[in-house]
């Protein structure tokens, strides 16, 4: 799993704060995007067999695939996109939300995207599948949570 050991005991809120701090070092727009591109290029490879139609979130700008599996009571998310910038943001979302209990995912309050100035990537007009991706992540949380009950 891509989650580092030191993230294991951090809450969703704490990981987000860490990302915000990380981004606060960038003064230029381009530095920020260089970093996102790097994250995107280093995103854990997505299993081709999970590139199913039901995992595909279609956007007219870029496509996103999202897969969620329950392992030892926690949801492991993997995802992919055809655009690198989208992949970079996916990497951040996975860092925050993967390897979490369904209940945590379900109730997560996502604030880092706006705080690091990437909100425009989530604008519905961008139609890059990220907005639906976050919705689908939450749906996984709800579904797995009710399964565990």
């Amino acid at each position, binding site marked *: 799993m891509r989650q580092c050991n030191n993230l294991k005991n951090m809450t969703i809120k704490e990981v987000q704060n860490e990302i915000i701090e990380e981004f606060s070092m960038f003064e230029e727009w381009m530095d920020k995007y260089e970093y996102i591109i790097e994250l995107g290029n280093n995103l854990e490879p997505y299993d081709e067999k999970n590139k199913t139609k039901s995992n595909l979130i279609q956007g007219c*700008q*870029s496509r996103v695939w999202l897969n969620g599996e329950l392992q030892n009571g926690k949801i492991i998310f993997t995802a992919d996109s055809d655009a690198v910038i989208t992949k970079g943001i996916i990497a951040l979302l996975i860092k925050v939300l993967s390897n979490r209990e369904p209940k945590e995912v379900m109730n997560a309050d996502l604030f880092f995207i706006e705080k690091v100035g990437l909100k425009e*990537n989530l604008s519905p007009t961008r139609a890059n599948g990220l907005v639906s991706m976050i919705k689908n992540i939450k749906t996984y949380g709800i579904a797995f949570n009710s399964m565990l009950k």
Partner: protein
Amino acid sequence: MFDVEKIKKDFPILDQEIYGKKLVYLDSAATTQKPKQVINEVSKFYSSLNSNIHRGVHYLSIKSTEEYEKSRDTVCKFINAKHTEEIIFTKGTTEAVNLTAYSFGERFVNEGDEILVAKTEHHSNIVPWQMLCYRKNAVLKVIPADENGELKINEYKKLLNPKTKLVAVAHIANSTGVINPIKEIIDAAHNNGTYVLIDGAQAVQHKQVDVQSLDCDFYAFSGHKMFAETGIGVLYGKKEILEDIPPYQGGGDMIKTVSFEKTEYADLPYKFEAGTSNYVGAISIAKAIEYMQSVGLDEIEIYEKKLLKYATDKLLSIDKIKIYGQTEKKISAISFLLNGIHHYDTGMILDKLGIAVRTGTHCAEPTMKHFGIDGTVRASFAMYNTKEDIDKLYEGLMRVKKMFA
């Protein structure tokens, strides 16, 4: 004398910074910016003349109506229509096509009849015809295109048959800028007894259009793509056809008399203008036409041709770039991809450099499918764009290449 610097100064929006960078606006095929002459005219109208048209006996209403009808006359002369009442104001090109698909379809299209559209059409010149075909059990057929996005005219001619009721093609394809051979298309259709609608949304802001010499039956375009307001457009239709087909929508202004037993429709053009029209939009179109004519339509065409050539050469000098719609018969748009770099990634970085382009399918999914791609980056120009804008785009693309290397 065409003076781009002077023209540029007329467009206040262009003089600003985006993310600390000077704005380079290369998305005019989506919408053009407005000159201060148009902005001021609209403001002046609301400040001194506004009143609902066609209804009042009072001074302002009469003045307002006069201005609205004068605009119709300006549009009529602009595209060289024969009669003023052949000009119908609509919400835009989309509504103009929907109006035609409905009203023409009701009158002329029956089960088993065929409608022809080009493979490189915008969705707005596909879906209304598809809806008509569903409604009437008619068949939608497609004019094929080659690898450059040019229509295969011989294949087109073979598709024409006694069942072909109407051909709907764009004057200029929005996703590639390729100019279609509409005169040849119209003549072949007429020889077959088939009507023709031309979607001129990407044409009227770039070149002189003469509907009488084209001899098309319908010609549609939008105000917002020709330096006027949004929410206004034009449908030109030949008088005898417009008289023959039923109205599209019912409401005020489109009637002569109304009773619960029977309603008599108004004469042209009002028969097709139900409800309060966007009369301010119509006035803005007239002002935009006046502006374009003050620059000179031919001068605009010549300048933009030079700019397109400059831009094409400059972009082609970039290693591993592919232009979709690479042909001589083109106008003011370049649709391209940098090898291995997603259009969204390219667009996002250009945006951060203050360069506005459009990315994606450009509302032309079948065209993208034709090229075997998901989308492109489209840089599109208007008369206010300069060589410096192209240079900035080039520098931006070099930066993108470096970032995604």
